[in-house]
Each structure stands twice: as C-alpha cells, then as structure tokens.
C-alpha cells in the first residue's frame, strides 16, 4: 500500500508531462496542414470580406465605405441576372447529371462484354482538357455548318444560332456540362457499388424483393453518402464554371449565359473593380457556406455511413 501511495504522485506527474508532450506533438503534426489551410483559405476569405468594405483609389489608398458596395450590388441588374442564371444552370445540370451517372454506373457494374471499354468511354469527357471540350461543343453548336445544324438540315430545317440566341444558350451549356460531369460522377457511383456486398442483393432476392424494390430500399440508401458527395461537388461545379464561358459565349448574348463566377472574373479582371469583385465573392462564399451547413448539419445525420 505504501509503495503505491509513494509512487502515485510521480506517475501522475509523468502522465501529466506526457499528456503535455502529446498535445505539443499533435499540434506540430497538424501545423503543416493548418498553415496551408490558413494561408490559402481562411486568410483570403477574411481579406476578401475586409476588401468588400473598402474601395481602392487610383493612388492606391483604401477608403472605408461600409456596405456601399453591397447596396450597389443589390441595384445591379447584371448581378441578379447572373444569380438567376446560376440558379437555372444548377437546377438544369445537377439532378440530371447525378441521375445519369447513377444509371450509367449500374449499367456498367454488371458482368458484360466490353465493360472496360464502356467505362472508359463514359469517363473520357472528364479526362479531356476543358478548353478542348469547349471547342468540340463549339463545333456542334456552330450555326449552319455545325453538327447540330447539319442534323437539322436533314429534316429540312434552317440554321439556328444556338449560342447566339438568349433562349437557347443556357440550354446548350447545360447539355454540355451534363455530358461532361455525368461520366465523372459515374466513377464515384461505380466505386460505391463495388463496395456493396452482392450478398445483400441475393438476400433481398430470396425474400422476394423485385429489382426495383431492392434498388429503392437497399442499394439507393446505401449509396446516399456517395450521392451527397457527388451532389455537393455538382453544386460547387455549377458555381465554378468559367473556362467554357470564356471560350464559348463570354457570358453573352445580353448576359444570358453569365454565371456568378464569370461575372466576378469580368468585374475583377476586365473592369478592374477589385472591391466590387470582392463583394460579389462574399455573396458566392455565403451561398456555398449555406450549402455546406445544410450538408453537415442536416443531411449527414440522416445518412447511413458504413
């Protein structure tokens, strides 16, 4: 008894210093990642928010203007146009590309001839450089001698300026982005499907479940983590699209294909108005944060993770 009583304080002190070292170690291990995260993510966000509250004079001095830029933004019809465009663009691309990705993944997940080739074919759009993709589709959409108009010509229909008409330009972009993203998302679904044990499907089959019932009650719920991941990616991508617009439409005609990030790019680098660009960026950041909050706060709790 006396032995343990005597040794107790020492061991306690030792565990305390050990715990201290553990903490220091942990922070040291975290440091590289933390430095990168702060330097390239958190600090720029704070700097942007600060910048949106100032305007920069020609001589380089900054003047505090408070929420003036935000008021100007609220009165800016092009900003609203870009926001609404972005909404329709997201609505047009996200559900369709995810559904297509899931269908394609289930299709190529079976044992069949040429499966590898089919998987590769679906994945090709993702591998191609975006500038090349934009040029391919530019050829499809070219009036009169583009692929689409030549097809129309077979039915005796006249040429159509697909990207030059405000009523069709958004639809054209949506189709292209779906084509590009569905294959990429398919890879994630394919990986998730291959993680599922075939026993589950067999067990369901023995219980008399139809294929649709099995998909609805077993496969799809078990794919929910993937669906969420893919959906978040799709949302981010729909706010991130710039390069195709630069090649294909430059946001035109009459801002019919201007999306939020493209507008920010134009404001910052064409109009050289960095403080207004910062204001717009803050709005974009808030939009994406809300989506992230919904994901972590609500959806994650309702999804089964293995």
């Amino acid at each position, binding site marked *: 008894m006396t032995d343990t009583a005597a040794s107790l304080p020492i061991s306690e002190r030792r565990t305390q210093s050990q715990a201290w070292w553990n903490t220091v170690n942990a922070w040291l291990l975290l440091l590289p990642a933390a430095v990168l995260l702060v330097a390239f993510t958190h600090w720029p966000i704070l700097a942007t928010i600060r910048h949106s509250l100032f305007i920069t004079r020609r001589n380089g001095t900054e003047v505090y203007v408070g929420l003036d830029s935000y008021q100007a933004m609220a009165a800016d019809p092009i900003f609203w146009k870009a926001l609404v465009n972005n909404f329709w663009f997201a609505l047009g691309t996200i559900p369709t590309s995810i559904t297509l990705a899931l269908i394609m993944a289930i299709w190529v997940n079976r044992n069949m001839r040429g499966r590898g080739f089919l998987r590769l074919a679906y994945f090709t759009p993702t591998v191609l450089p975006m500038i090349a993709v934009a040029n391919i589709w530019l050829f499809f959409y070219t009036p009169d001698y583009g692929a689409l108009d030549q097809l129309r010509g077979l039915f005796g229909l006249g040429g159509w300026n697909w990207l030059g008409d405000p009523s069709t330009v958004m639809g054209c972009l949506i189709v292209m982005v779906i084509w590009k993203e569905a294959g990429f998302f398919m890879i994630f679904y394919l990986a998730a499907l291959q993680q599922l*044990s075939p026993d589950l499907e067999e*067990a369901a*089959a*023995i*219980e008399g*479940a139809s294929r649709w019932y099995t998909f609805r009650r077993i496969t799809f719920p078990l794919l929910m983590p993937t669906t969420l991941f893919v959906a978040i990616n799709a949302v981010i991508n729909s706010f991130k699209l710039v390069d195709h617009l630069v090649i294909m439409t430059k946001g035109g005609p009459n801002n019919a294909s201007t999306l939020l990030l493209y507008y920010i790019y134009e404001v910052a680098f064409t109009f050289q108005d960095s403080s207004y660009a910062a204001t717009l960026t803050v709005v974009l950041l808030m939009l994406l944060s809300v989506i992230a909050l919904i994901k972590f706060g609500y959806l994650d709790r309702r999804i089964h993770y*293995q």
Partner: protein
Amino acid sequence: MSAITLSHVSKFWGTMRAVDDVSLTADEGSLLVLLGPSGCGKSTTLRLIAGLEEADAGSISIGGVDVTHLSPAQRKISMVFQSYALFPHLSVAENIVFGLRVRRVSRAERDERLKRVADIVGLSHLLERKPSQLSGGQRQRVALGRAIIAEARVCLMDEPLSNLDAKLRHEMRTEIRALQQRLGMTMVYVTHDQTEAMTMADRVVLMRDGRIEQNGSPEELYNRPATAFTARFIGTPPMNLVRRGDRLIGIRPEHIRIVAGGDHAARVKAIEHLGADSIVWCEIDGQPISVRLDGFSKVLRGEDIRIAWNAEHEHGFDSTTEARLENIVKEGRLAASSP
C-alpha cells in the same frame, strides 16, 4: 411437403466442374449437412438449391415441385448467409421483417410475428439497433430471425457459424439444431467443420471436387467411411491410415492402446493434453499415427513405445482407388455387433 431432391445436378464454371452430377435427398423436417473442404462445391450446391445459380444439368425439386428454373423467391425458401447479409442501414426490426414488407403483410401481423421471432432468437431488447451496433453473435441471431419469420418450410444455411468464436459457435450449434427441430424445418446446412456436421446432422453429405464422396448418417460416416478421403476428413483427430502392401489400413485413434509388448514399435513425436483425454502423436515405420488416451498421458516426447489395436477395428481401403474394401468391414461389423 418440403423434402428437397437433387437429381444429377451439375454446374460448370467454364471447364471447371463446380458441381458434378450430384444427387441427394433431404427428407422433410430433417437437417442435411453439406460437408467438405473449401472449393469442394458445397456452397455452389446450396446456391443451386436456393436458385441463386442456375443448374447446367439435372433437376431440383422442393416439396415435390420441380423448381429447377424458378427464381429464389418462387422457391419459398429462407437463407442465412455466411456474411449474414444484414442490411446495414436498417434497424434489427426492419431487417427481420424485410421479407414481410416485400410481401405486403399487414402491419399488425408483421408486428406480432416480429415479437414472436424476436423472443425466439432473444433479440427483443435490441430491435431498434443497427447491425453495426451488435456483436457477431447478435448479428447471427438477426440473420436467423430474418430466416425464420417467413415461416418457410425450407431453410438454407451457408457456413452460418464460421465468423463466430469457438464458445459462441458451440452455443449457436445447439440452438440452431433445437430451432430446426422445434419448427420442423427442412434444413440444408453447409460447413467445412466436421464437428458441426457430426453434432447437428441427420444426414451428412461429404463432397470432394464437386462430387459426393459419401452420403449417410453421421454414425455411418464415422463408423463406416466409404473412402479413405472420408476417413481422413471425419474425426478429431481423423482416422489413422497406415500403408500395408497395396491397401491402406485405417484405425481410429481411440482404438489404439499403448501396451508393453504391443504389435508395433512407435516413437512419440508430440503430445496434446486436452484434459479429459490426450492425443499422442507417434510414428510407426515412418508413418504418422495418432493415439487417443484417456486422462493425462504420462508418455514423453522421444520415448519409444509399443502400440496395439484389435483387428476388428481395422478399416481397409484400396490404396489406388481409395475405396473401402468390404471384406474387412464385414469382419469388423460382426465383431462390433457380437459382444
């Protein structure tokens, strides 16, 4: 009517004969064990009965109905998988009633049957849990519950105990057997563990390379192995096979005694003390042989001993075909039934 009959069933994977001309019958209300080493085709045979694979030749009937080309659901069977195949996102209750929901059984009946089955498998207090929150034995019970709630007359089990520890395995073995008898199910049970086969089965079908090696009661397989393969497979430790001329002589370890002045000189290689008995591993003429002795054996490693056995306990096998030589058997049987 729930007897299962396979007649001349074959299944090929390319040129590999996974199941090769298998014929067997599981009587109504009996437990038939498909036993064999891995890759012998026992699991494939079970999957053929379940309808998860389609037979390339032969026919399968359940309860007198030809089910060879029916889907698993149409065969009205239940099955327990080696992995349990529990739906990880559904609660224990939802897992158990999955099949009832598929068949649109009313909520009231579903609840009532769930309650009854949960009592039988002892899961009443865990119904809200997810499978990931259960121990291996509890998951096994969920799989069992899902199999019996359908009240199918036929239950198929694919190595259901192989993921459990030894103690639980022993418990579940007894429980599954009791349940099978209580509910009067016809059960086909796949295992590579001959102890499970010996303790649970009404009939054991020992398979090897897609073919049936021997089909009989556990007692027959133990006392009258039809081939040297069966002799080597059944028993812990299995039957000793000693080459003598053009035949193999088989003697069970428990039939060998260590006696001064015994017929054969042997050298002790190792001793395993199991408590109630000891296994002494010896060598005679360069051939390994095991001896089972009651109690705690005092022989030492490296010791030279003499062993003996009675001729009536000898089983004879042809050393090339490995088939049983009947004349020796007859003598053996006579000797066994005379005292």
